[in-house]
């Protein structure tokens, strides 16, 4: 599995960190989850031009990007703080950690073995 480019990964990392702070949500207690999702978002950004949710299956990814519903932050997240990818977790979630940041190095290390 190829990793995303530095540029797109940094873009998604910065977005996720500021969005978590803005919405009062936290990253998963398992940083491997955060890392995998950020790589997935960055790869979609690279391949499709938009950060389509990597935790769904689509029959047609290009069409989904245009529909925008599942482009991160998706509609369920924006409306109800529901992120089934477990990238943004509300503090009452059993899997919520206490961090709103992750280093690029951590992301690369945690996704390298795939």
């Amino acid at each position, binding site marked *: *599995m190829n990793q995303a480019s530095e540029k797109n990964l940094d873009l998604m990392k910065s977005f996720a960190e500021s969005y978590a702070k803005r919405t009062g949500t936290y990253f*998963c207690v*398992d940083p*491997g*989850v*955060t890392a*995998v*999702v950020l*790589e*997935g*978002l960055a*790869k979609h950004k690279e391949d499709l031009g938009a950060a389509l949710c*990597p*935790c*769904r*299956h689509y*029959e047609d990814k290009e069409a989904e990007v245009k529909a925008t519903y599942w482009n991160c932050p998706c509609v369920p997240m924006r409306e109800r703080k529901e992120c*089934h*990818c*477990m*990238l943004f977790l509300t503090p009452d979630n059993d*899997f919520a950690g206490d961090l709103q940041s992750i280093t690029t190095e951590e992301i690369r290390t945690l996704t390298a073995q*795939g």
Partner: protein
Amino acid sequence: MSEATQVTDASFDSEVLESEVPVLVDFWAPWCGPCRMVAPVVEEISKDYDGRVKVVKVDTDKNPSVANKYGIRSIPTLMIFKGGQKVDMVVGAVPKTTLANTLDKYL
């Protein structure tokens, strides 16, 4: 250590639909965080139910036909097949007990 077999579009019918025992299918994708969380649970189930339930995995990115056929949307989706039919499903990174209780209904 038993590891769940990866099943493809090509092998799905023979591995899943024609299986003599119930099959738990883990529909996953490489860049899905909760898939990573549920993977060890699926492995444990595979060991606990050895011989009684077959446990397999389908990478939805590489095998879109099967994923489309069964209407997979949110991943991970864990689907149970018995006698060639889909009989139940659980969506998301669920605890082991939830998965075990669902499976027990079909044994």
